[in-house]
């Protein structure tokens, strides 16, 4: 009975305040979309880092079938060449610059590739043979990349030496800057949303002061009086958060999935499914912001 009563109160509150409720939904929608966009950029950065990015800095790719580099004149890397390279890495002259190194075979490379590009159509057309084996090196000082590069580039069996960090760092810093901007915009929009929710609840409390006055007099509990108002704000904010989650999913699905991944097939993009892990966070964030701001407003404007 009490639940039915509270629900009907919420319904009538939402109906009476339709325009304000819609504006709350839109403001939370926009602000949480920005929050989510920042989250998506971070997910994308993680995706692009792949398996090795945080573990090593330099990769020495070994010759495979189609290699055309000068070091690959003898065709694919032979076991002897590979042993030589490993001995060179372990020799004191080189070992002083590196923490450790790992060998990635063609099969392992294929496995990591599949993980990173799981959302991309390219994964089906790649076989382990097409991927080069490599030594992955964790540098003591990443700035000393040149030493490794000079030592190994000319070795037989080496196709190329790549500083992965240098390739991606600039892109990542741009993406980090973009997420920072998104978070700042989100911050301003969230302040906006909080103030708007507070105003909406205040109006709602004012337009129903007759009812709440009577409820107080006949001894309704604080919960029964306040809950409809709080839930009104929370429901509006949660609807906004759901819209924001839907938008992020649509961006991941239509923009990244259908468009960008075709334009840049060699880049790993996040899947639409991954954006859904942001959804619960957005729903909770929206709901709790609305709950807290309406609770604080009610403490000032609704005597119980």
């Amino acid at each position, binding site marked *: *009975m*009490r639940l039915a*009563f509270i629900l009907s109160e919420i319904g009538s509150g939402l109906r009476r305040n339709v325009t304000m409720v819609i504006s709350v939904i839109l403001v939370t929608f926009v602000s949480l979309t920005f929050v989510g966009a920042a989250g998506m950029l971070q997910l994308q950065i993680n995706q692009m880092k792949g398996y090795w990015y945080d573990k090593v800095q330099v990769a020495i790719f070994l010759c495979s079938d189609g290699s055309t580099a000068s070091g690959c004149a003898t065709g694919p890397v032979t076991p002897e060449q590979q042993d030589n390279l490993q001995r060179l890495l372990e020799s004191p002259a080189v070992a002083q610059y590196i923490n450790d190194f790992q060998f990635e075979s063609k099969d392992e490379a294929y496995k990591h590739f599949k993980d990173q590009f799981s959302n991309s159509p390219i994964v089906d057309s790649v076989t382990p043979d097409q991927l080069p084996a490599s030594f992955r090196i964790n540098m003591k000082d990443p700035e000393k990349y040149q030493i490794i590069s000079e030592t190994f580039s000319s070795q037989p069996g080496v196709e190329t030496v790549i500083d992965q960090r240098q390739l991606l760092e600039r892109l990542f810093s741009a993406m980090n800057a973009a997420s920072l901007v998104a978070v700042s915009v989100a911050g301003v929009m969230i302040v906006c949303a909080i103030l708007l929710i507070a105003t909406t609840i205040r109006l709602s409390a004012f337009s129903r002061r*007759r*009812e709440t*006055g*009577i*409820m*107080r*007099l*006949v*001894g*309704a*509990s*604080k919960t*029964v*009086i306040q809950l409809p108002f709080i839930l009104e704000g929370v429901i509006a904010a949660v609807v906004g958060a759901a819209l924001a989650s839907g938008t992020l999913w649509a961006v991941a699905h239509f923009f990244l999935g259908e468009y960008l991944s075709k334009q840049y097939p060699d880049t790993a993009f996040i899947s639409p499914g991954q954006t859904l892990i942001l959804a619960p966070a957005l729903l909770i964030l929206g709901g709790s912001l609305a709950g807290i701001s309406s609770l604080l407003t009610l403490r000032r404007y609704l005597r119980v």
Partner: protein
Amino acid sequence: MIRFENVTKVYDQQARPALDAVNLEIDRGEFAFLVGASGSGKSTFLRLVLKEDRASSGTVYVAGQNVAKISSWRVPRLRRGIGVVFQDFRLLPQKNVFANVAFAMQVIGKSRSVIRDTVPEVLKTVGLEGKENRLPHELSGGEQQRVAIARAVVNRPGILLADEPTGNLDPTTSMGIMGVLDKINQNGTTVVMATHDDDIVNEMRKRVVELKNGVVIRDEAKALYTSMIPIVGQSRRLKDASGREEIPPPSPAAYSDDAGEEQR
């Protein structure tokens, strides 16, 4: 039922207190008028009983409880034991008569079946049978006040506070309302009514507590709106004590919950 011990209420430090060291006891089942000019402290008295305000000093007891000691989350329970009626009725305009009365039960979580049984009964008590589906604006002032009274007593409070309930009504209608209040009082509810209406007070011949500038200047049983005995100044207070003793004790059976059910 209501006991004021040396209660003072100061709203504004510079002004005189709204209530000044008031000692007053209203027994269970009593019917008392609170009279006095505007600003004499009648409304403050009622607000203190409801714990809408805190006494600046002194103690207010309602149903044996010191209201200052009731924690805020138990105030609703205190208020469930007190019905309130106002001069301006305070009905919900978009709800019909039945829904207005039922509202008071819904918000404290009474079940639908209890509401369906109780509301018609109470509407009968206040003389509104057959008007369940009317909206407030379709009723006369007297009928609206009856709805308000029904709402105030539907949860069977031990105390009914009425703040000038006949202030907006003509004399005949007012007498009808007084009949309803008297009936509720007969059923065992303590009724305290603040009023300016001398005709009603004179007609009813109940206990009269007169306030002036926050001080009780008269407390007489079966009294008139203005005192028949010319007493000057302080000596009026002496009359208080003797006046109170003349009140007949109410029957305790009338007050218990099961008894209330049948009497209604």
